[in-house]
């Protein structure tokens, strides 16, 4: 088979990683394909390689703008110039230019809400789509941890594009969710490739600590355990605070969250990848699309909101296959914070009532919803997330009468909230049950545990000594800083000479 040749030609690899070849073959045989591959095992190759082999454009639907941006950057860094992202970051002028040149691109990333507009769909119809890629396909299912109503429309859009060959990708989907994916995408036939979510090289620890001791314990862990690593927080403020405390302790640590400016985000991400930082104190905004092989630990300072995202986040450790450590710090009552967060993302019943009163009083039309954004947000006290949720729900039910929509929305919210609560209690179960943590998670995804690593989990036994720090932190690598030497080492080929002449 010529597949290995293509692999080498386009990616410079000589062998496939586990699962990739079967999936690529399935696509190249013209079969719709659903692939579940654990995080960090090279999912994107599964559509990029067929994309190169097939004639025509590859359209990739991807839910997160930051992730989309990262993927485009990475493909460009690999030398692929015919790649573009269509999302709300574009100015109207940029968008127009890109749409005019659309057929000249090979890989077209598009966000689901953009795909919902007629303009884009009509442009897409003029293309020869060789492959439609649904990334993070679990977003289509309301049982998925990251349900996006926009994803439900993809099935109809796919049909209007002439039902092109499709591949749906996900890292974490239960059986239920996988069935939803096939159904909603309206895949007539489909080959499924499901690979285990188990990552035996990652030890799964849980530590129960008092609320007061958590910060101290996290600091102590970072002091003892080999980095680099990521600590996840659910609040920006705490991430900042702990980064400061870690720096005081002599660690090379920075906080990363949505409140940073664009340049700082790029720099911190790149510093971490280039081993200039050992610890990133992050919110869930960090990590997507980060290709770093040698992450040694992931600490969760707060409870994750679902086992799915937990698995994604700890999956960023040990991509080089070496032993790594995941530790979840739990203090009794932590679930209250999770419940609050989950509730805060959804609008409250009173807010929904108020919204429809305002809409009726001012006789607003659904199409005008966004033009009255400010009025509606302030009069109902919506947060940004709440508003986005409500607005997208209402506009997608635009042609029904408003009483109907109100009732549907109310039901929908209470339904979502229940699902979210169930997921939180599942995490709590995971923390509290007296059994193997690995088996617990695998069972949740409908698998049986087969691996039995030496450092399995805190129930089966886990020796923290294995992960002890051996390479001391190389602090203050830039001091003393001489700006002229630094410029010379950046821009001149022979660095040695400028040093000798001093």
């Amino acid at each position, binding site marked *: 088979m010529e597949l290995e040749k293509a692999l080498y030609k386009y990616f410079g690899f000589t062998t496939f990683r586990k699962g990739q070849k079967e999936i690529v073959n399935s696509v190249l045989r013209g079969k719709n394909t659903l692939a579940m591959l654990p995080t960090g095992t090279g999912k994107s190759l599964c559509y990029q390689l067929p994309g190169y082999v097939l004639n025509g454009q590859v359209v990739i639907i991807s839910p997160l703008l930051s992730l989309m941006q990262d993927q485009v*950057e990475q493909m460009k860094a690999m030398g692929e110039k015919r790649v573009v992202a269509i999302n709300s970051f574009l100015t109207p002028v940029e968008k127009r230019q890109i749409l005019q040149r659309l057929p000249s691109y090979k890989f077209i990333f598009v966000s689901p809400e953009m795909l919902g507009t007629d303009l884009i769909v009509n442009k897409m119809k003029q293309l020869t789509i060789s492959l439609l890629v649904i990334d993070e396909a679990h977003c289509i299912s309301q049982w998925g941890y990251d349900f996006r109503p926009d994803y439900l429309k993809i099935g109809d859009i796919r049909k209007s594009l002439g039902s092109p060959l499709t591949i749906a990708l996900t890292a974490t989907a239960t059986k239920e969710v996988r069935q939803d994916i096939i159904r909603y995408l309206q895949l007539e036939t489909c080959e499924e490739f499901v690979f285990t979510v188990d990552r035996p090289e990652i030890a799964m620890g849980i530590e129960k600590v008092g609320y007061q001791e958590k910060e101290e314990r996290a600091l102590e862990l970072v002091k003892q355990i080999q980095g680099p690593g990521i600590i996840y927080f659910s609040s920006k403020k705490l991430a900042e605070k702990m980064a400061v405390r870690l720096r005081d302790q002599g660690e090379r640590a920075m906080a990363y969250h949505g409140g940073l400016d664009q*340049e*700082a985000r790029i720099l911190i991400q790149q510093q971490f990848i*280039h081993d200039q930082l050992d610890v990133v104190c992050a919110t869930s905004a960090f990590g997507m699309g980060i290709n770093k092989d040698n992450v040694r630990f992931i600490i969760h300072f707060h409870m994750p909101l679902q086992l799915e995202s937990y698995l994604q986040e700890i999956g960023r450790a040990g991509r080089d296959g070496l032993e790594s450590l995941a530790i979840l710090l739990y203090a009794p009552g932590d679930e209250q914070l999770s419940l609050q967060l989950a509730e805060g993302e959804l609008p409250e019943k009173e807010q929904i009532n108020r919204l429809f009163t305002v809409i009726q009083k001012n006789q607003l039309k659904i199409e005008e919803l966004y033009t009255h954004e400010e009025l509606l947000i302030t009069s109902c006290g919506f947060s940004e997330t709440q508003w986005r949720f409500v607005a997208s729900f209402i506009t997608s039910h635009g042609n029904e009468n408003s009483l109907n929509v109100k009732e549907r929305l109310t039901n929908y919210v209470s339904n979502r909230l229940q699902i979210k609560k169930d997921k939180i209690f599942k995490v709590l179960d995971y923390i509290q049950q007296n059994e193997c943590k690995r088996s617990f998670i695998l069972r949740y995804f409908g698998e049986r545990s087969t691996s039995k690593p030496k450092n399995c989990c805190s129930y089966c036994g886990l020796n923290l000594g294995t992960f002890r720090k051996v390479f001391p932190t190389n602090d203050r690598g830039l001091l003393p800083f001489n*700006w002229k030497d*630094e*410029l010379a080492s950046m*821009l001149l080929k022979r660095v040695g000479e400028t040093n000798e002449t001093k």
Partner: protein
Amino acid sequence: MTISYSDAVLLHCLNQINNERSIYSLYHLFQGKKSSQTIQDAHLFNLTAFFRAFPLLTRMELEKAIEELQHSGLLERTSNEHYRLNKFGESALREFHTRNELPPKFLEGWNYHHLTTVFWERLSILVQVCSNLVHQKKGFIPVQNKQETLEWVKSYIKAQNINRYDLAEQLYNELIFCLESEQTIQPSVLILRMTGNNRIGLTSKQAADMLNMENTHYQLEFLNVIHFMIGTISANQDQYKQLSGLVRDAQKTVPFTLSTEKTYRLIEKGFTPIEIANIRKLKTSTIEDHIVEIALHLESFDLNKYVNENKQERIMKVANETSAKKLKQIRDYVNDASYFEIRLVLARNGGRQWN
């Protein structure tokens, strides 16, 4: 009493506005708000250096900082949003000025605010690309991600049409020459932020920490270096063959706000303010705001069409004698002048006559 750098910046600016404007006028100044009021105030109170100096500052942060200054007994509150330095504040500021140059020597927020970001983004990406070219590294993630910046660097390098080693070396030589030509600037402030083939640049916060500087101090020193470079390079384009390319196609003069631009074009065609107001369906007062903005921007703009010379002289005389910057006080003395005429004359003579 020794005060922090950010305290000194606030005290300095409050001292300049002399209790005649609210603290929010400073917020707008630091943000670089393009309103006639903010632009005029910046000139009137000799604060143009600080225009858009802290675009990320929030209202709340400013309020908090002012409150703290009041608590430490350096400021007194004169009305809801107005504050004045008391004698402790004044002496603390005086003492600070003996040790520090504030604003930094080359800080020119008003003249360069529209070039600052573009210049830094282009410089940092150009250095990163050249560094990777020289060390033959492919596949790096650009530290700037604006499409227009990336396209600029691509076409810039192509247009130079010299080999990568020479390009990087020329860039190196010019940077050294430029940064060494002035003793008072701190090149490290800039170079620490740069990304090369084997080191990712620091964020502004990291660089400030490394240099043991307060964030506010660092921010102004960073702008000071950038503004120094823009000024030096623009004035000596033949000496900076590579670096002048960073500013060549960027707009030289401060751009008008869009609406002012339209008014300006109608003035050029010979229309009067009232005619323009009719044409544009705007209030005459709005058009007058535009004209004041134009007078601030363009030294060549002829005022005599709007205020006769004799009146101009009388307005300036009063303004100088009383050091009053409140329009009403001036009008009490020159009662045949309209507010528009006074504002126009002050705008023209703003920064140069006073202080």
